[in-house]
């Protein structure tokens, strides 16, 4: 358990300068979540086009560095990707935190893998896993919901 694994530079960068914050234009799915213990909040907006591509993806929210970075990395990684692929990556991400599986998907760039994997340090901090997974679970419930 080492703090440096948790607060890696990539994470701090995303936490301080979250990408894709706000409501994305023309979003047709959204969902929000809230962790009553620490007050973390996230609201995911996404636009699913007719070809089942996530053409728009953004978030609003407040929270700790881990939860902000996680939401920011999520939007950065999945924006423009298709639905099934996004579900697969979400599974892999949750699996990485739960079962310490490495992320190896071919169609991700090496950069993207490094970025996502930066959150693997959270494994060693059980009470923070929720911070890292909240955005991803929220994405899934946004996709499960009917169009707005």
């Amino acid at each position, binding site marked *: 358990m080492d703090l440096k694994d948790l607060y890696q530079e990539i994470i*701090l960068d995303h936490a301080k300068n979250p990408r894709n914050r706000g409501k994305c234009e023309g979003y047709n799915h959204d969902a929000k979540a809230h962790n009553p213990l620490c007050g973390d909040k996230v609201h995911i907006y996404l636009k699913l086009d007719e070809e089942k591509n996530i053409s728009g993806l953004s978030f609003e929210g407040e929270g700790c560095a881990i939860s902000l970075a996680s939401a920011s990395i999520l939007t950065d990684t999945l924006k423009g990707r298709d639905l099934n692929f996004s579900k697969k990556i979400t599974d892999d991400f949750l699996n990485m935190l739960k079962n310490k599986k490495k992320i190896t998907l071919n169609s991700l760039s090496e950069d993207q893998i490094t970025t996502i994997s930066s959150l693997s340090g959270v494994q060693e901090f059980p009470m*923070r896993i929720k911070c890292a997974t909240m955005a991803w679970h929220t994405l899934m419930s946004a996709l499960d919901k009917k169009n707005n």
Partner: protein
Amino acid sequence: MNIKNIKSEFPIFKQKINGKNLIYLDSANSSQKPKTVINEISSFYETEFSNVGRSVHTLAVKATNRFEETRDVVRSYINAKHREEIIFTKGATEAINLVAHSYGEKFIKSGDEIILTELEHHSNYVPWHYLREKKGAVIKFAPVDINGEINVDEFKKLITNKTKIIAFTHISNVTGTIMPVKKITDLAKSKNIPVLIDGTQGAQHLSIDIQDLDCDFYAFSCHKMYGPNGLGILYVKKKWIDELPPYQGGGGMISEVKKDNITYADSPTKFEAGTMQTAEVVAFAKSIKFLKDLGIKNIENHESDVLEYGLEQLRKNNSVKIIGNPKERASIISFTMKGIHPHDIATILDDEGVAIRAGHHCCQILHDKLGIPASARASIGLYNNKEDIDVLCEAINKCKKVFEV
């Protein structure tokens, strides 16, 4: 026993946390237990355990006597007049639920008003909210000022002839504010309004004289008083004892049970349904003995010194913003840091062995008012000292380093 090196009485401090000494600054959440209390639980289970008040065999007699002795010890500790005013509950939460339910069912009607404060812990709000939902009662919040204080005049303004109860915390678990209890109970008494005090943060820091406070109900939790978890106390002023209907129903609390009707026992039994937390009650007498042996005045003075030192040190740190500045304050410092979320502070501090709490501490109303989603809270117990504060301050500096702020 000397308060200066009292940590040796608490086995938990033998632990290393991430290779560091444990600096436990989360006692407002739950306090650690001295070995006399822990040993009492074991030895009770090992040599005296039996169910209380049910059987007549030797073990049952011993256990019943030990159980009832604690009631006397608690009575005397808070200077209540009658032993039947002391009711054992699962915790302060159950104690407040009991009052809201039993008093509320009988005395609160649609349109009646309940006065709380913006400082309340959820456990002194949710049970009253139930009455709002069920009965159409109205809840009013006495507002807290920028210092974290609530002036007695704010209560005055809210009282009407529909006010049916005033319920407020003795000490805020976020700002550490010590409330002007006597002034509020005097005011309430002059208007004939019953008062419930949430003493969950009070009874471990201040000496309590319940007859002097003159409230109708006083609720607190043993696990914050260096006692066992799963146990709380409700003081109910004698005049209410027969007035209030029972709360939970079950064994022990009845007088006669017929197919068409049930009558109830007298207090305190009436309010203690089912098998109680025998070992916890017995062991809690040791917590009070521990507090008395140290001297509650000595504890107050010691904690006060550590608190003052803590406030002084943290005020020196530009990145730290302390929440509230009440004139009368006990043992609690909540704060925020620019650019670092409390959750991250807590994790980094933990890496240094420093245990604090991050979140809204079950006080969402207050955090909304302050416009912050969460805060970090360092709370001081009798085992903390100035060296602990020094470690805390260094760990806070480490947060700044990690986050480059």
